Protein backbone atom coordinates (compact mmCIF):
# COMPACT_ATOMS: atom_id res chain seq x y z
CA UNK A 1 0.00 0.00 0.00
CA UNK A 2 1.11 3.48 -0.87
CA UNK A 3 -0.05 6.57 0.98
CA UNK A 4 0.65 10.19 0.09
CA UNK A 5 -0.41 12.83 2.63
CA UNK A 6 -0.47 16.55 1.86
CA UNK A 7 2.76 16.53 -0.11
CA UNK A 8 4.34 19.78 -1.27
CA UNK A 9 7.52 20.36 -3.24
CA UNK A 10 9.18 23.74 -3.64
CA UNK A 11 12.07 24.40 -5.98
CA UNK A 12 14.37 27.34 -5.71
CA UNK A 13 15.62 28.59 -9.05
CA UNK A 14 17.82 31.59 -8.46
CA UNK A 15 15.88 33.75 -6.01
CA UNK A 16 12.47 32.67 -7.27
CA UNK A 17 10.56 30.00 -5.37
CA UNK A 18 8.49 27.68 -7.47
CA UNK A 19 5.95 25.36 -5.90
CA UNK A 20 5.56 22.31 -8.13
CA UNK A 21 3.26 20.42 -5.73
CA UNK A 22 0.87 22.32 -3.49
CA UNK A 23 -0.50 19.62 -1.21
CA UNK A 24 -1.34 16.30 -2.81
CA UNK A 25 -2.96 13.38 -0.98
CA UNK A 26 -4.10 9.95 -2.17
CA UNK A 27 -3.87 6.28 -1.36
CA UNK A 28 -3.15 3.46 -3.78
CA UNK A 29 -3.95 -0.11 -2.73
CA UNK A 30 -1.86 -3.11 -3.72
CA UNK A 31 -2.89 -4.46 -7.10
CA UNK A 32 -4.26 -1.20 -8.48
CA UNK A 33 -3.51 0.12 -11.98
CA UNK A 34 -3.48 3.90 -11.70
CA UNK A 35 -2.74 6.55 -14.30
CA UNK A 36 -1.50 9.95 -13.18
CA UNK A 37 -2.45 12.42 -15.87
CA UNK A 38 -1.77 16.06 -16.42
CA UNK A 39 -0.40 18.53 -18.93
CA UNK A 40 3.29 19.36 -18.92
CA UNK A 41 4.23 21.62 -16.03
CA UNK A 42 1.39 20.25 -13.91
CA UNK A 43 3.75 18.71 -11.37
CA UNK A 44 3.22 15.12 -12.42
CA UNK A 45 6.94 14.54 -13.07
CA UNK A 46 7.77 15.92 -9.62
CA UNK A 47 5.15 13.63 -8.12
CA UNK A 48 6.61 10.68 -10.00
CA UNK A 49 10.11 11.45 -8.68
CA UNK A 50 8.79 11.47 -5.13
CA UNK A 51 6.75 8.29 -5.62
CA UNK A 52 9.82 6.66 -7.17
CA UNK A 53 12.02 7.63 -4.19
CA UNK A 54 14.27 9.64 -6.49
CA UNK A 55 13.44 12.78 -4.54
CA UNK A 56 11.91 13.73 -1.19
CA UNK A 57 8.99 16.11 -0.60
CA UNK A 58 9.44 19.55 1.02
CA UNK A 59 6.60 18.75 3.41
CA UNK A 60 4.02 16.03 3.90
CA UNK A 61 4.55 12.30 4.21
CA UNK A 62 4.90 9.46 1.75
CA UNK A 63 4.49 5.95 3.11
CA UNK A 64 5.37 2.91 0.99
CA UNK A 65 4.64 -0.54 2.43
CA UNK A 66 4.36 1.00 5.89
CA UNK A 67 7.68 2.79 5.65
CA UNK A 68 7.98 6.57 5.73
CA UNK A 69 10.07 7.45 2.69
CA UNK A 70 9.84 11.23 2.98
CA UNK A 71 12.74 11.68 5.39
CA UNK A 72 15.26 9.15 4.16
CA UNK A 73 18.89 9.81 3.22
CA UNK A 74 20.25 9.35 -0.28
CA UNK A 75 21.56 5.83 0.34
CA UNK A 76 18.35 4.81 2.13
CA UNK A 77 16.36 6.04 -0.87
CA UNK A 78 18.59 3.91 -3.11
CA UNK A 79 17.75 0.94 -0.90
CA UNK A 80 13.98 1.63 -1.37
CA UNK A 81 14.42 1.92 -5.15
CA UNK A 82 16.36 -1.32 -5.18
CA UNK A 83 13.82 -3.37 -3.23
CA UNK A 84 10.41 -1.74 -3.67
CA UNK A 85 10.26 0.08 -7.00
CA UNK A 86 10.66 -0.80 -10.65
CA UNK A 87 11.02 1.97 -13.25
CA UNK A 88 10.00 2.00 -16.90
CA UNK A 89 11.19 5.11 -18.74
CA UNK A 90 10.03 6.87 -21.88
CA UNK A 91 13.55 6.63 -23.30
CA UNK A 92 13.96 2.96 -22.22
CA UNK A 93 17.47 3.50 -20.80
CA UNK A 94 18.83 0.07 -21.58
CA UNK A 95 22.60 -0.35 -21.46
CA UNK A 96 23.83 -0.13 -25.06
CA UNK A 97 25.74 -3.04 -26.66
CA UNK A 98 24.66 -5.27 -23.80
CA UNK A 99 22.57 -8.43 -24.04
CA UNK A 100 18.91 -8.45 -23.10
CA UNK A 101 19.57 -10.88 -20.28
CA UNK A 102 22.35 -8.74 -18.80
CA UNK A 103 20.16 -5.66 -18.92
CA UNK A 104 17.37 -7.40 -17.04
CA UNK A 105 19.81 -8.86 -14.49
CA UNK A 106 21.34 -5.46 -13.66
CA UNK A 107 19.05 -4.66 -10.67
CA UNK A 108 19.89 -8.10 -9.23
CA UNK A 109 23.59 -7.26 -9.46
CA UNK A 110 23.05 -4.34 -7.10
CA UNK A 111 20.85 -6.52 -4.89
CA UNK A 112 23.78 -8.98 -4.68
CA UNK A 113 21.76 -11.98 -5.80
CA UNK A 114 23.71 -15.12 -6.78
CA UNK A 115 24.49 -15.42 -10.51
CA UNK A 116 22.45 -18.60 -10.97
CA UNK A 117 19.38 -17.11 -9.33
CA UNK A 118 19.76 -13.94 -11.44
CA UNK A 119 19.43 -15.88 -14.68
CA UNK A 120 16.38 -17.71 -13.44
CA UNK A 121 14.62 -14.56 -12.30
CA UNK A 122 15.54 -12.59 -15.43
CA UNK A 123 14.17 -15.44 -17.52
CA UNK A 124 10.88 -15.37 -15.62
CA UNK A 125 10.60 -11.59 -15.82
CA UNK A 126 11.24 -11.58 -19.57
CA UNK A 127 8.55 -14.21 -20.11
CA UNK A 128 6.14 -12.23 -17.96
CA UNK A 129 6.88 -9.14 -20.05
CA UNK A 130 6.10 -11.16 -23.17
CA UNK A 131 9.50 -11.27 -24.89
CA UNK A 132 10.28 -14.36 -26.93
CA UNK A 133 13.15 -16.51 -25.68
CA UNK A 134 15.05 -16.18 -28.97
CA UNK A 135 15.78 -12.53 -28.18
CA UNK A 136 17.29 -13.12 -24.73
CA UNK A 137 20.86 -13.14 -25.98
CA UNK A 138 20.45 -10.32 -28.49
CA UNK A 139 22.14 -7.00 -27.88
CA UNK A 140 19.81 -4.24 -26.78
CA UNK A 141 20.46 -2.24 -29.96
CA UNK A 142 19.33 -5.13 -32.17
CA UNK A 143 15.74 -4.97 -30.94
CA UNK A 144 12.66 -3.04 -32.10
CA UNK A 145 11.15 -0.28 -29.95
CA UNK A 146 8.36 -2.50 -28.65
CA UNK A 147 10.80 -5.25 -27.76
CA UNK A 148 13.11 -2.78 -26.03
CA UNK A 149 10.29 -1.47 -23.86
CA UNK A 150 9.31 -5.00 -22.91
CA UNK A 151 12.91 -5.64 -21.86
CA UNK A 152 12.68 -2.48 -19.75
CA UNK A 153 9.43 -3.77 -18.20
CA UNK A 154 11.12 -7.08 -17.43
CA UNK A 155 13.96 -5.16 -15.77
CA UNK A 156 11.40 -3.30 -13.65
CA UNK A 157 9.78 -6.61 -12.68
CA UNK A 158 12.87 -8.62 -11.90
CA UNK A 159 13.33 -7.38 -8.32
CA UNK A 160 9.77 -8.29 -7.47
CA UNK A 161 8.95 -4.69 -6.47
CA UNK A 162 5.74 -3.64 -4.76
CA UNK A 163 5.31 -0.81 -7.25
CA UNK A 164 6.02 -0.37 -10.95
CA UNK A 165 6.36 3.24 -12.09
CA UNK A 166 6.04 3.85 -15.81
CA UNK A 167 6.89 7.36 -17.01
CA UNK A 168 5.35 7.94 -20.46
CA UNK A 169 6.25 4.36 -21.43
CA UNK A 170 4.74 4.71 -24.92
CA UNK A 171 6.07 8.20 -25.62
CA UNK A 172 8.73 6.99 -28.04
CA UNK A 173 6.65 4.25 -29.68
CA UNK A 174 4.15 4.26 -32.53
CA UNK A 175 0.54 3.75 -31.48
CA UNK A 176 0.45 0.09 -32.49
CA UNK A 177 3.53 -0.89 -30.46
CA UNK A 178 2.35 1.42 -27.71
CA UNK A 179 -0.84 -0.59 -27.55
CA UNK A 180 1.16 -3.82 -27.15
CA UNK A 181 3.17 -2.31 -24.28
CA UNK A 182 0.02 -1.06 -22.55
CA UNK A 183 -1.56 -4.50 -22.95
CA UNK A 184 1.54 -5.92 -21.28
CA UNK A 185 0.98 -3.66 -18.29
CA UNK A 186 -2.70 -4.62 -18.12
CA UNK A 187 -1.78 -8.28 -18.23
CA UNK A 188 0.79 -7.87 -15.45
CA UNK A 189 -1.81 -6.08 -13.38
CA UNK A 190 -4.66 -8.52 -13.99
CA UNK A 191 -2.80 -11.82 -14.06
CA UNK A 192 0.00 -11.16 -11.62
CA UNK A 193 -1.55 -8.55 -9.37
CA UNK A 194 1.19 -5.95 -9.87
CA UNK A 195 0.64 -2.40 -8.64
CA UNK A 196 1.28 -0.11 -11.58
CA UNK A 197 1.40 3.68 -11.77
CA UNK A 198 1.39 5.09 -15.27
CA UNK A 199 2.38 8.71 -15.81
CA UNK A 200 1.10 10.22 -19.04
CA UNK A 201 -0.33 13.34 -20.60
CA UNK A 202 -2.48 11.45 -23.13
CA UNK A 203 -6.04 10.55 -22.29
CA UNK A 204 -6.18 7.45 -24.52
CA UNK A 205 -3.23 5.97 -22.70
CA UNK A 206 -4.59 6.80 -19.27
CA UNK A 207 -7.79 5.02 -20.30
CA UNK A 208 -5.97 1.68 -20.02
CA UNK A 209 -5.75 2.10 -16.24
CA UNK A 210 -8.52 1.38 -13.76
CA UNK A 211 -8.20 4.68 -11.99
CA UNK A 212 -7.09 8.07 -13.25
CA UNK A 213 -5.72 10.83 -11.04
CA UNK A 214 -5.75 14.20 -12.80
CA UNK A 215 -3.24 16.75 -11.67
CA UNK A 216 -2.98 20.41 -12.65
CA UNK A 217 -0.87 23.24 -11.24
CA UNK A 218 0.36 21.06 -8.42
CA UNK A 219 -3.07 19.98 -7.19
CA UNK A 220 -5.33 16.97 -7.80
CA UNK A 221 -8.35 18.06 -9.79
CA UNK A 222 -10.04 14.73 -10.24
CA UNK A 223 -9.63 11.14 -9.01
CA UNK A 224 -11.89 8.76 -10.87
CA UNK A 225 -12.34 5.01 -11.20
CA UNK A 226 -13.91 4.26 -14.53
CA UNK A 227 -13.73 0.50 -14.60
CA UNK A 228 -16.02 -0.26 -11.71
CA UNK A 229 -15.52 -4.00 -12.04
CA UNK A 230 -11.88 -3.78 -11.06
CA UNK A 231 -12.11 -1.86 -7.82
CA UNK A 232 -10.64 -3.60 -4.81
CA UNK A 233 -10.09 -6.76 -6.72
CA UNK A 234 -8.62 -9.35 -4.39
CA UNK A 235 -4.99 -10.39 -5.04
Amino acid at each position, binding site marked *: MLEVKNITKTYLSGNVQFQALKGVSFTIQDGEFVAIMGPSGSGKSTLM*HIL*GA*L*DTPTSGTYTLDGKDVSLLS*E*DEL*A*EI*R*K*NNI*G*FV*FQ*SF*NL*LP*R*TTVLRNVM*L*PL*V*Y*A*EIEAEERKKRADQALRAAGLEKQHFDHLSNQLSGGQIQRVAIA*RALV*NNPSLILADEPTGNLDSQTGEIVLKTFQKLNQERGRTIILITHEHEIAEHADRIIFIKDGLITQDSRHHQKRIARPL
Partner: protein
Amino acid sequence: MKTLDILEETYLALSANKIRSFLTTLGIVIGISSVIAMLAIGQGAQSSIQSSIQSIGSNLIIIMPGAQRGPGTTVSAGRGSAKSLTLADAQAISQEVSNLKGVSPEVSGRYQVTAKGTNTNTQVVGVNSAYPDVRNVAVDNGAFISEQNLTTASKVAVIGPTVRDDLFGVDSNPLGQTIRIKQINFTIIGITKAKGGSGFGSQDDMIFIPLTTAQKFLAGDEYVTSISAAAQDAESTATVQQQITDLLLTRHHIASPQLADFNTLNQADIAATASSVAQIFTILLGSVAGISLVVGGIGIMNMMLTTVTERTREIGLRKSIGAKRRDISLQFLIEAVTLTFLGGLLGVILGWLISWGITYFGLIQTKVSPFSVLLAFSVSAAIGIIFGYYPARRAAKLNPIDALRFE
Protein backbone atom coordinates in the same frame (compact mmCIF):
# COMPACT_ATOMS: atom_id res chain seq x y z
CA MET B 1 27.70 -4.86 -5.35
CA LYS B 2 29.99 -7.86 -5.34
CA THR B 3 33.67 -7.53 -6.30
CA LEU B 4 33.35 -10.03 -9.12
CA ASP B 5 30.44 -8.03 -10.59
CA ILE B 6 32.42 -4.79 -10.41
CA LEU B 7 35.29 -6.46 -12.25
CA GLU B 8 32.90 -7.80 -14.88
CA GLU B 9 31.34 -4.35 -15.36
CA THR B 10 34.84 -2.89 -15.67
CA TYR B 11 35.79 -5.42 -18.30
CA LEU B 12 32.64 -4.73 -20.30
CA ALA B 13 33.03 -0.96 -20.06
CA LEU B 14 36.69 -0.98 -21.09
CA SER B 15 36.25 -3.49 -23.89
CA ALA B 16 33.34 -1.45 -25.29
CA ASN B 17 35.89 1.25 -26.17
CA LYS B 18 38.94 -0.85 -26.97
CA ILE B 19 40.91 1.71 -28.96
CA ARG B 20 40.27 4.49 -26.49
CA SER B 21 41.20 2.27 -23.55
CA PHE B 22 44.35 1.16 -25.36
CA LEU B 23 45.48 4.68 -26.25
CA THR B 24 44.85 5.90 -22.72
CA THR B 25 46.78 2.97 -21.31
CA LEU B 26 49.60 3.69 -23.77
CA GLY B 27 50.34 6.91 -21.87
CA ILE B 28 50.95 4.91 -18.71
CA VAL B 29 52.84 2.20 -20.61
CA ILE B 30 55.25 4.79 -21.99
CA GLY B 31 55.61 6.47 -18.61
CA ILE B 32 56.28 3.29 -16.66
CA SER B 33 58.54 1.71 -19.28
CA SER B 34 60.67 4.83 -19.50
CA VAL B 35 60.97 5.00 -15.71
CA ILE B 36 62.07 1.35 -15.65
CA ALA B 37 64.45 1.70 -18.58
CA MET B 38 65.95 4.98 -17.33
CA LEU B 39 66.53 3.61 -13.84
CA ALA B 40 68.03 0.46 -15.38
CA ILE B 41 70.38 2.56 -17.52
CA GLY B 42 71.33 4.73 -14.55
CA GLN B 43 71.96 1.78 -12.29
CA GLY B 44 73.80 -0.05 -15.06
CA ALA B 45 76.03 2.96 -15.61
CA GLN B 46 76.64 3.19 -11.88
CA SER B 47 77.72 -0.42 -11.58
CA SER B 48 79.86 -0.28 -14.72
CA ILE B 49 81.66 2.77 -13.34
CA GLN B 50 82.11 0.93 -10.05
CA SER B 51 83.50 -2.15 -11.72
CA SER B 52 85.88 -0.18 -13.92
CA ILE B 53 87.18 1.57 -10.81
CA GLN B 54 87.49 -1.81 -9.10
CA SER B 55 89.43 -3.12 -12.10
CA ILE B 56 92.36 -0.76 -11.52
CA GLY B 57 92.96 -2.54 -8.23
CA SER B 58 91.16 -2.84 -4.96
CA ASN B 59 91.70 -0.66 -1.88
CA LEU B 60 94.17 1.29 -3.93
CA ILE B 61 95.98 4.48 -2.93
CA ILE B 62 97.77 6.33 -5.70
CA ILE B 63 100.55 8.77 -4.80
CA MET B 64 101.43 11.30 -7.43
CA PRO B 65 104.02 14.08 -7.42
CA GLY B 66 102.77 17.62 -6.85
CA ALA B 67 103.02 20.57 -9.20
CA GLN B 68 106.41 21.85 -10.34
CA ARG B 69 106.99 25.49 -9.46
CA GLY B 70 109.98 27.51 -10.50
CA PRO B 71 111.37 29.80 -7.78
CA GLY B 72 109.68 33.20 -7.71
CA THR B 73 107.35 32.52 -10.61
CA THR B 74 103.67 31.68 -10.65
CA VAL B 75 103.85 29.46 -13.71
CA SER B 76 102.74 25.97 -12.81
CA ALA B 77 103.41 22.94 -14.97
CA GLY B 78 100.43 21.23 -13.37
CA ARG B 79 99.97 18.49 -10.87
CA GLY B 80 102.00 15.33 -11.39
CA SER B 81 104.68 17.14 -13.34
CA ALA B 82 107.12 17.54 -10.45
CA LYS B 83 109.81 15.01 -9.85
CA SER B 84 109.52 14.58 -6.12
CA LEU B 85 108.93 10.84 -5.63
CA THR B 86 111.78 8.37 -5.66
CA LEU B 87 112.24 4.64 -5.45
CA ALA B 88 113.49 5.18 -1.92
CA ASP B 89 110.10 6.70 -0.98
CA ALA B 90 108.39 3.57 -2.27
CA GLN B 91 110.77 1.34 -0.31
CA ALA B 92 110.20 3.40 2.83
CA ILE B 93 106.43 3.05 2.42
CA SER B 94 106.60 -0.71 2.03
CA GLN B 95 108.82 -1.01 5.12
CA GLU B 96 107.19 1.45 7.50
CA VAL B 97 103.47 1.46 6.73
CA SER B 98 101.39 -1.34 8.21
CA ASN B 99 98.36 -3.15 6.71
CA LEU B 100 99.84 -3.03 3.21
CA LYS B 101 99.29 -5.66 0.58
CA GLY B 102 101.90 -4.25 -1.76
CA VAL B 103 103.61 -1.14 -3.05
CA SER B 104 104.26 -0.55 -6.72
CA PRO B 105 106.38 2.39 -7.85
CA GLU B 106 105.85 3.19 -11.51
CA VAL B 107 107.67 5.14 -14.21
CA SER B 108 105.44 5.75 -17.16
CA GLY B 109 105.57 7.58 -20.44
CA ARG B 110 104.10 7.44 -23.92
CA TYR B 111 106.35 6.22 -26.69
CA GLN B 112 106.13 5.21 -30.29
CA VAL B 113 106.62 1.45 -30.27
CA THR B 114 107.60 -0.47 -33.39
CA ALA B 115 107.70 -4.13 -34.36
CA LYS B 116 108.44 -5.70 -37.75
CA GLY B 117 106.89 -3.02 -39.93
CA THR B 118 104.03 -2.04 -37.61
CA ASN B 119 103.98 0.60 -34.93
CA THR B 120 101.72 2.08 -32.28
CA ASN B 121 101.81 4.86 -29.74
CA THR B 122 101.16 3.57 -26.26
CA GLN B 123 101.84 3.81 -22.55
CA VAL B 124 105.08 2.21 -21.42
CA VAL B 125 105.21 1.58 -17.67
CA GLY B 126 108.23 0.61 -15.67
CA VAL B 127 107.04 -1.57 -12.80
CA ASN B 128 108.32 -3.98 -10.19
CA SER B 129 107.10 -7.47 -9.45
CA ALA B 130 104.44 -6.23 -7.00
CA TYR B 131 102.46 -4.56 -9.80
CA PRO B 132 100.15 -7.50 -10.72
CA ASP B 133 99.05 -7.83 -7.08
CA VAL B 134 98.49 -4.14 -6.49
CA ARG B 135 96.79 -3.31 -9.78
CA ASN B 136 94.84 -6.54 -10.39
CA VAL B 137 96.69 -7.53 -13.53
CA ALA B 138 97.12 -11.18 -14.47
CA VAL B 139 99.37 -12.76 -17.07
CA ASP B 140 97.63 -14.77 -19.76
CA ASN B 141 100.65 -16.17 -21.54
CA GLY B 142 104.29 -16.24 -20.44
CA ALA B 143 105.48 -14.58 -17.23
CA PHE B 144 105.46 -11.17 -15.57
CA ILE B 145 108.58 -9.16 -14.75
CA SER B 146 110.65 -10.96 -12.10
CA GLU B 147 113.02 -9.74 -9.37
CA GLN B 148 115.81 -11.08 -11.60
CA ASN B 149 114.73 -8.82 -14.46
CA LEU B 150 114.71 -5.87 -12.03
CA THR B 151 118.18 -6.37 -10.61
CA THR B 152 119.74 -6.87 -14.03
CA ALA B 153 117.67 -4.14 -15.67
CA SER B 154 116.99 -6.57 -18.50
CA LYS B 155 115.29 -5.44 -21.71
CA VAL B 156 112.13 -7.52 -21.49
CA ALA B 157 108.49 -6.47 -21.92
CA VAL B 158 105.07 -7.73 -20.94
CA ILE B 159 102.45 -6.38 -23.33
CA GLY B 160 98.70 -5.90 -23.03
CA PRO B 161 96.33 -7.66 -25.43
CA THR B 162 95.44 -4.42 -27.25
CA VAL B 163 99.13 -3.74 -27.93
CA ARG B 164 99.56 -7.32 -29.15
CA ASP B 165 96.57 -6.91 -31.51
CA ASP B 166 97.93 -3.60 -32.80
CA LEU B 167 101.48 -4.81 -33.40
CA PHE B 168 101.20 -8.51 -34.21
CA GLY B 169 97.61 -9.05 -35.22
CA VAL B 170 94.58 -10.29 -33.33
CA ASP B 171 95.14 -13.38 -31.16
CA SER B 172 98.68 -13.94 -32.37
CA ASN B 173 101.36 -15.29 -30.07
CA PRO B 174 104.33 -12.90 -30.09
CA LEU B 175 106.17 -14.47 -27.14
CA GLY B 176 109.92 -14.21 -27.73
CA GLN B 177 109.54 -11.59 -30.46
CA THR B 178 111.16 -8.18 -30.32
CA ILE B 179 109.66 -4.71 -30.08
CA ARG B 180 111.55 -1.42 -30.28
CA ILE B 181 110.97 1.41 -27.82
CA LYS B 182 113.15 4.52 -28.23
CA GLN B 183 115.54 2.57 -30.51
CA ILE B 184 116.01 -0.14 -27.85
CA ASN B 185 115.03 -3.74 -28.47
CA PHE B 186 112.83 -5.45 -25.88
CA THR B 187 111.99 -9.15 -25.87
CA ILE B 188 108.36 -10.04 -25.14
CA ILE B 189 108.15 -12.43 -22.18
CA GLY B 190 104.44 -12.23 -21.38
CA ILE B 191 100.97 -11.05 -22.41
CA THR B 192 98.46 -9.85 -19.82
CA LYS B 193 94.88 -11.02 -19.60
CA ALA B 194 92.30 -8.72 -21.20
CA LYS B 195 90.44 -6.67 -18.54
CA GLY B 196 88.14 -4.71 -20.83
CA GLY B 197 86.72 -1.38 -19.90
CA SER B 198 88.34 1.94 -20.38
CA GLY B 199 87.94 4.25 -17.41
CA PHE B 200 91.30 5.33 -16.07
CA GLY B 201 93.51 4.38 -19.01
CA SER B 202 92.96 0.87 -20.25
CA GLN B 203 95.46 -1.58 -18.81
CA ASP B 204 95.00 -3.65 -21.95
CA ASP B 205 96.76 -0.94 -23.95
CA MET B 206 100.05 -0.87 -22.00
CA ILE B 207 103.56 -2.24 -22.14
CA PHE B 208 105.18 -3.24 -18.86
CA ILE B 209 108.98 -3.24 -18.52
CA PRO B 210 111.22 -3.57 -15.44
CA LEU B 211 111.26 -0.35 -13.37
CA THR B 212 115.07 -0.23 -13.34
CA THR B 213 115.17 -0.56 -17.14
CA ALA B 214 112.67 2.29 -17.51
CA GLN B 215 114.68 4.57 -15.24
CA LYS B 216 117.98 3.75 -16.90
CA PHE B 217 117.08 3.69 -20.62
CA LEU B 218 113.82 5.63 -21.03
CA ALA B 219 113.50 8.27 -18.27
CA GLY B 220 117.18 8.68 -17.52
CA ASP B 221 116.71 9.64 -13.87
CA GLU B 222 116.01 8.17 -10.43
CA TYR B 223 112.49 9.49 -9.97
CA VAL B 224 109.20 7.63 -10.28
CA THR B 225 106.04 9.06 -11.86
CA SER B 226 103.66 7.52 -9.32
CA ILE B 227 103.46 5.02 -6.50
CA SER B 228 100.49 2.70 -6.10
CA ALA B 229 99.89 1.12 -2.74
CA ALA B 230 97.23 -1.46 -1.93
CA ALA B 231 95.81 -1.71 1.57
CA GLN B 232 94.88 -5.06 3.11
CA ASP B 233 91.17 -4.27 3.21
CA ALA B 234 88.69 -1.48 2.60
CA GLU B 235 88.56 -0.47 6.30
CA SER B 236 92.30 0.18 6.58
CA THR B 237 92.51 2.22 3.36
CA ALA B 238 92.01 5.56 5.12
CA THR B 239 94.62 4.89 7.85
CA VAL B 240 97.11 3.59 5.29
CA GLN B 241 96.59 6.77 3.27
CA GLN B 242 97.19 8.86 6.41
CA GLN B 243 100.33 6.90 7.32
CA ILE B 244 101.74 7.30 3.80
CA THR B 245 101.06 11.05 3.85
CA ASP B 246 102.75 11.45 7.25
CA LEU B 247 105.72 9.32 6.20
CA LEU B 248 106.31 11.21 2.96
CA LEU B 249 105.94 14.59 4.67
CA THR B 250 108.67 13.59 7.13
CA ARG B 251 110.90 12.21 4.40
CA HIS B 252 110.51 15.33 2.26
CA HIS B 253 110.97 17.63 5.33
CA ILE B 254 107.64 19.39 4.84
CA ALA B 255 105.92 20.80 7.89
CA SER B 256 102.32 21.24 6.78
CA PRO B 257 100.20 18.97 4.54
CA GLN B 258 99.07 22.06 2.57
CA LEU B 259 102.60 22.48 1.25
CA ALA B 260 103.06 18.81 0.29
CA ASP B 261 104.89 18.15 -2.99
CA PHE B 262 102.75 15.11 -3.68
CA ASN B 263 99.08 14.10 -3.74
CA THR B 264 97.44 10.94 -2.53
CA LEU B 265 94.30 9.65 -4.18
CA ASN B 266 92.17 7.08 -2.44
CA GLN B 267 90.27 4.72 -4.72
CA ALA B 268 87.24 4.77 -2.42
CA ASP B 269 87.04 8.56 -2.86
CA ILE B 270 87.19 8.20 -6.62
CA ALA B 271 84.50 5.54 -6.51
CA ALA B 272 82.28 7.65 -4.24
CA THR B 273 82.59 10.69 -6.49
CA ALA B 274 81.92 8.69 -9.63
CA SER B 275 78.94 6.92 -8.16
CA SER B 276 77.43 10.15 -6.87
CA VAL B 277 77.71 11.51 -10.41
CA ALA B 278 76.01 8.39 -11.71
CA GLN B 279 73.31 8.75 -9.08
CA ILE B 280 72.53 12.31 -10.14
CA PHE B 281 72.39 11.05 -13.70
CA THR B 282 69.91 8.33 -12.62
CA ILE B 283 67.72 10.81 -10.76
CA LEU B 284 67.71 13.13 -13.76
CA LEU B 285 66.70 10.37 -16.17
CA GLY B 286 64.15 9.03 -13.72
CA SER B 287 62.49 12.39 -13.19
CA VAL B 288 62.20 13.08 -16.91
CA ALA B 289 60.51 9.69 -17.24
CA GLY B 290 58.39 10.52 -14.19
CA ILE B 291 57.02 13.58 -15.97
CA SER B 292 55.79 11.39 -18.80
CA LEU B 293 54.09 9.22 -16.19
CA VAL B 294 52.20 12.23 -14.83
CA VAL B 295 51.18 13.17 -18.38
CA GLY B 296 49.88 9.61 -18.79
CA GLY B 297 47.92 10.00 -15.56
CA ILE B 298 46.30 13.17 -16.84
CA GLY B 299 45.33 11.21 -19.96
CA ILE B 300 43.57 8.69 -17.74
CA MET B 301 41.70 11.44 -15.92
CA ASN B 302 40.70 13.04 -19.21
CA MET B 303 39.30 9.77 -20.51
CA MET B 304 37.47 9.03 -17.27
CA LEU B 305 35.83 12.48 -17.27
CA THR B 306 34.72 11.95 -20.88
CA THR B 307 33.37 8.54 -19.94
CA VAL B 308 31.41 9.92 -17.00
CA THR B 309 29.80 12.56 -19.21
CA GLU B 310 29.05 10.03 -21.93
CA ARG B 311 27.51 7.62 -19.51
CA THR B 312 25.51 10.15 -17.48
CA ARG B 313 22.20 8.51 -18.41
CA GLU B 314 23.61 5.11 -17.61
CA ILE B 315 24.64 6.39 -14.19
CA GLY B 316 21.13 7.81 -13.73
CA LEU B 317 19.63 4.45 -14.64
CA ARG B 318 21.97 2.55 -12.32
CA LYS B 319 20.99 4.88 -9.49
CA SER B 320 17.28 4.51 -10.27
CA ILE B 321 17.52 0.74 -9.93
CA GLY B 322 19.23 0.99 -6.57
CA ALA B 323 22.94 1.71 -7.05
CA LYS B 324 24.38 3.65 -4.13
CA ARG B 325 27.02 6.39 -4.40
CA ARG B 326 29.64 3.91 -3.33
CA ASP B 327 28.68 1.44 -6.09
CA ILE B 328 29.04 4.12 -8.76
CA SER B 329 32.27 5.65 -7.49
CA LEU B 330 33.84 2.23 -7.00
CA GLN B 331 32.92 1.23 -10.55
CA PHE B 332 34.62 4.25 -12.11
CA LEU B 333 37.58 4.18 -9.75
CA ILE B 334 38.23 0.55 -10.55
CA GLU B 335 38.00 1.30 -14.26
CA ALA B 336 40.75 3.90 -13.86
CA VAL B 337 42.88 1.69 -11.64
CA THR B 338 42.49 -1.22 -14.06
CA LEU B 339 43.73 0.96 -16.91
CA THR B 340 46.76 2.16 -14.99
CA PHE B 341 47.47 -1.28 -13.59
CA LEU B 342 47.41 -2.82 -17.07
CA GLY B 343 49.54 0.07 -18.24
CA GLY B 344 51.94 -0.62 -15.39
CA LEU B 345 52.15 -4.29 -16.27
CA LEU B 346 52.78 -3.65 -19.97
CA GLY B 347 55.14 -0.82 -19.03
CA VAL B 348 57.26 -3.09 -16.86
CA ILE B 349 57.47 -5.64 -19.66
CA LEU B 350 58.30 -2.99 -22.26
CA GLY B 351 60.80 -1.27 -19.97
CA TRP B 352 62.47 -4.57 -19.29
CA LEU B 353 62.63 -5.29 -23.03
CA ILE B 354 64.16 -1.85 -23.70
CA SER B 355 66.80 -2.42 -21.00
CA TRP B 356 67.48 -5.87 -22.37
CA GLY B 357 67.84 -4.44 -25.88
CA ILE B 358 70.26 -1.77 -24.68
CA THR B 359 72.38 -4.44 -23.01
CA TYR B 360 72.06 -6.77 -26.01
CA PHE B 361 73.28 -4.16 -28.48
CA GLY B 362 76.15 -3.40 -26.14
CA LEU B 363 75.33 0.25 -25.50
CA ILE B 364 75.52 -0.02 -21.75
CA GLN B 365 75.20 -2.84 -19.25
CA THR B 366 71.72 -2.21 -17.75
CA LYS B 367 70.26 -3.61 -14.58
CA VAL B 368 66.48 -3.74 -13.88
CA SER B 369 66.15 -3.77 -10.11
CA PRO B 370 63.14 -5.31 -8.33
CA PHE B 371 62.86 -1.97 -6.54
CA SER B 372 62.14 -0.08 -9.75
CA VAL B 373 59.54 -2.67 -10.77
CA LEU B 374 57.85 -2.39 -7.40
CA LEU B 375 58.03 1.40 -7.60
CA ALA B 376 56.51 1.39 -11.09
CA PHE B 377 53.62 -0.82 -9.97
CA SER B 378 52.78 1.17 -6.89
CA VAL B 379 53.10 4.47 -8.76
CA SER B 380 50.79 3.26 -11.52
CA ALA B 381 48.20 2.05 -9.03
CA ALA B 382 48.49 5.34 -7.14
CA ILE B 383 48.06 7.30 -10.39
CA GLY B 384 44.89 5.32 -11.07
CA ILE B 385 43.50 6.22 -7.67
CA ILE B 386 44.59 9.86 -7.77
CA PHE B 387 43.47 10.61 -11.31
CA GLY B 388 40.42 8.33 -11.13
CA TYR B 389 39.13 9.73 -7.85
CA TYR B 390 37.79 13.02 -9.15
CA PRO B 391 35.86 11.58 -12.14
CA ALA B 392 34.49 8.77 -9.94
CA ARG B 393 33.33 11.24 -7.33
CA ARG B 394 31.72 13.34 -10.01
CA ALA B 395 29.84 10.30 -11.29
CA ALA B 396 28.72 9.28 -7.83
CA LYS B 397 27.44 12.77 -7.00
CA LEU B 398 25.18 12.95 -10.04
CA ASN B 399 21.55 13.49 -9.16
CA PRO B 400 19.59 10.56 -10.68
CA ILE B 401 16.75 12.79 -11.89
CA ASP B 402 19.08 15.15 -13.78
CA ALA B 403 21.21 12.25 -14.98
CA LEU B 404 18.21 10.47 -16.48
CA ARG B 405 17.14 13.63 -18.31
CA PHE B 406 20.67 14.30 -19.62
CA GLU B 407 20.83 14.54 -23.40
